[in-house]
């Protein structure tokens, strides 16, 4: 049985003088670290070239989420890891170490010949003993001198230059695209999404003001800033997606906190209330409206027994209908109002109703806030999806200044929302939109006069606290302003009047205004 050359060389170590063994061991470790440096430099070079290629490719096709810098850093780290592993594992073959030591210390092949002799790779000679002593002496001399250090790898300058070029390219090139390439299409897409988000931010702000949604109001400027940032010329897809994802996470966190507060309000003792409670419901709005009506009726009630009984029945109906949908505290206040009214204490009954109404309004505002944030998240997600898909924007994606779908008729948008189609559009502008009682300037609160009627506006100011005092409405009559029709003229039949009735019962319309709306539709039907 013959030993393999490597095994023979390992066993040769025992036949070598200790000085030679020590020097060869140190040299083997140096070789291993030299190879490690070489691996690292090569790895960095490859990573830099890959990063440069990735950057260049990004000017032609959208290359996804991974940024060129990440490619460079990941490649460099991988090379570093492999290099360290290589450096920690020196070869057990003594011959390369002997050859290197001979060369580096100018030992004229003394060590390598000694290793060969000890391993039996060359025939024994009468000068073998002299040779080993000579090698030991040479090793001692070499060890006394400067230690062997790994040489700088040959391609280190190239690797450094390539890494610098890759970093520079990663910082400067992204966002640059070649015309008529998929990358350019994606850049256009990003800018369009930026415009869309900016436009959406305005709508979000209006809606937040209208629904008194503070979180949504705070988020709107961020959405706008993001939209403006996306419209800048040099925006890479990876950066755009990262920015959108960051804002999306921020909004999600705010929405979760809001959801926590809503859950605590609705059912403090239930750890996870049903999801349906988080949606702005018509029932909640209707309950608030009914409570407002009841509070108004209580203020005008003249101790008529029949009217009191009617109130108590309505309150009982509200409490029963709100089981599982209204906050427990609100239901308790409604029950309290029933008891107080039943005892004949109308004042305390009205006070309980007002407290219940305040609770419900606060809940309604939080739900609206949460809904607005959810909507903003959805818009961001939609933008991210579109940017991620790349390609040329299709015609059905509305852009400012481009062909837009016809604006809905008055009341139609609200109808859509009530039917569950959340479009994200804010409520129509009008007097007192988003105002706070007792705060702000009158001009800002009233806003511009309605353009729909050819009649001078009437500015009135109601003093007092919301939900209290007399309800004041103003009926403004006048010819319609001449302007292009937004909807094609159609027939208004009894079916339309009936649908209007149905919606009016569900919508948040003060009772005395219902008559105006009804008459409007009846007039339209009569014209037919």
């Amino acid at each position, binding site marked *: 049985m013959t030993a393999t050359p490597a095994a023979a060389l390992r066993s040769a170590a025992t036949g070598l003088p200790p000085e030679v063994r020590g020097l060869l061991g140190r040299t083997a470790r140096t070789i291993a670290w030299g190879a490690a440096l070489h691996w690292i430099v090569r790895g960095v070079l490859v990573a830099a070239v890959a990063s440069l290629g990735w950057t260049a490719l990004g000017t032609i096709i959208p290359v996804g989420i991974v940024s060129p810098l990440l490619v460079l850093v990941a490649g460099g780290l991988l090379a570093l890891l492999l290099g360290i592993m290589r450096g920690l594992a020196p070869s057990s073959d003594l011959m390369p170490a002997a050859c290197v030591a001979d060369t580096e210390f100018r030992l004229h*092949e003394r060590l390598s010949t000694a290793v060969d002799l000890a391993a039996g790779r060359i025939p024994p000679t009468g000068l073998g003993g002299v040779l080993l002593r000579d090698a030991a002496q040479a090793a001692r001399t070499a060890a006394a001198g400067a230690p062997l250090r790994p040489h700088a790898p040959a391609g280190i300058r190239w690797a450094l230059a390539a890494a610098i070029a890759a970093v520079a390219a990663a910082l400067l090139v992204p966002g640059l695209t070649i015309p008529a390439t998929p990358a350019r299409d994606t850049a256009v897409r990003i800018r369009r999404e930026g415009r869309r988000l900016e436009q959406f931010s305005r709508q979000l702000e209006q809606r937040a003001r209208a629904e008194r949604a503070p979180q949504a109001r705070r988020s709107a400027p961020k959405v706008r800033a993001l939209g403006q940032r996306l419209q800048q010329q040099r925006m890479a897809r990876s950066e755009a997606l990262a920015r959108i994802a960051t804002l999306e996470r921020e909004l999600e966190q705010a929405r979760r906190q809001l959801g926590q507060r809503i859950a605590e309000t609705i059912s403090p003792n239930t750890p996870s209330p049903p999801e349906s409670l988080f949606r702005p419901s018509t029932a909640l709005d209707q309950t608030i409206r009914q409570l407002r009506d009841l509070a108004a009726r209580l203020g005008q009630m003249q101790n008529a027994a029949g009217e009191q009984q009617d109130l108590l029945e309505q309150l009982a109906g509200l409490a029963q209908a709100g089981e599982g949908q209204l906050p427990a505290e609100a239901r308790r206040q409604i029950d309290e109002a029933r008891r107080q009214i039943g005892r004949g204490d109308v004042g305390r009954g009205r006070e309980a109703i007002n407290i219940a109404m305040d609770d419900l309004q606060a809940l309604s505002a939080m739900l609206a806030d949460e809904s607005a944030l959810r909507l903003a998240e959805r818009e961001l997600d939609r933008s991210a999806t579109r940017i991620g898909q790349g390609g040329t924007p299709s015609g059905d994606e509305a852009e400012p200044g481009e062909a837009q779908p016809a604006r809905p008729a008055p009341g139609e948008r609200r109808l859509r929302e009530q039917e569950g189609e959340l479009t994200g559009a804010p409520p129509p502008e009008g007097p007192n939109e988003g105002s706070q009682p007792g705060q702000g300037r009158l001009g800002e609160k009233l806003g511009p006069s309605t353009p729909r009627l050819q009649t001078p506006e009437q500015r009135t100011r109601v003093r007092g606290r919301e939900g209290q005092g007399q309800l004041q409405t103003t009926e403004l009559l006048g010819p319609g302003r001449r302007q292009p029709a937004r909807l094609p003229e159609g027939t208004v039949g009894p079916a339309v009047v009936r649908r209007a009735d149905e919606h009016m019962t569900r919508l948040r319309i003060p009772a005395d205004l219902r008559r105006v709306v009804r008459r409007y539709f009846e007039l339209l039907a009569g014209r037919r």
Partner: protein
Amino acid sequence: MEPEAFRRTFLRLKTEMQKVIVGYEALLDEVLTALVAGGHVLLEGVPGLGKTLLVKTLAQVLDLHYSRIQFTPDLMPADIIGTNVVMQDEQGRRFFEFQRGPIFSQIVLADEINRATPKTQSALLEAMQEHAVTAAGVHYTLEEPFFVLATQNPIEMEGTYPLPEAQVDRFLFKLRVPFPPLADLITIMDRTTGPALPATEQVASGESVRAMQALAREVAVATHVKDYVARVIRATHPDGEGSASLARRFVRYGASPRGAQALLLAAKVRALLAGRVNVGFEDLQRVSLPALRHRIILNFEGEAEGTDPDEIIRNVLEETPQLPRVRT
């Protein structure tokens, strides 16, 4: 013999010869290296440079039989090897007796070897390679050490017979004797035109030379050094793996395996002189020119371009890596 004694003896030989030979230190080193390596030397140089004197001096400092053969066009092989002559004993009976020629010496000077015909030149073949001669069917072994030094004139080509490749290949070294520098020339004039000619002493015997030759063969050679020698020899060839660029262009046939032997033997001697008992790359490079230059046969382009084989050998050494690449 110990390596130190080897070195001492070598230096004494050189020093003694330098009493007569002015300058030519490298040439002396190479002649003595060839002697100790057991090879023969072809000295090439114009007349009057001291080639013959160098050989004669070498014979004087060694206790060896010396003979000189002046090669001429009418020289016959028998004039070198010897011949059977008819002899008569005391009883009047006649018999053939082999009369030994000048080859039966230990140091043979073949002066102007290229003036003899190839037939006569080839008479040296067996003697140089086998250290033996065969005459009339009888094999005669030459006494060791046997050392042939041949001289030839590179410029006077009329009436000469260039040595055949087989003959040239048997020389360990081909040494070029350059024209001496000015200072050496003045010293030569002083030494040779004065009243007293410099005298030399015998500083080594044939036995010493044989011991030195035996010790030189004991010098160890690492496997990768032998591998380098083989790659160098391969690189002198125009075709095949690892050929040097100039060899591919100008060489018709490269060095023979005998060239590898010459390279290694001479390098062993150089290693001992350097105080080592192993061959290094430096030793090989130092002897590569004299050991290989006469073994490279140029092609037509090489001849036409006047390419110097030394240039090709330097190119071979440059383009042949000593070691497989190991990074530090």
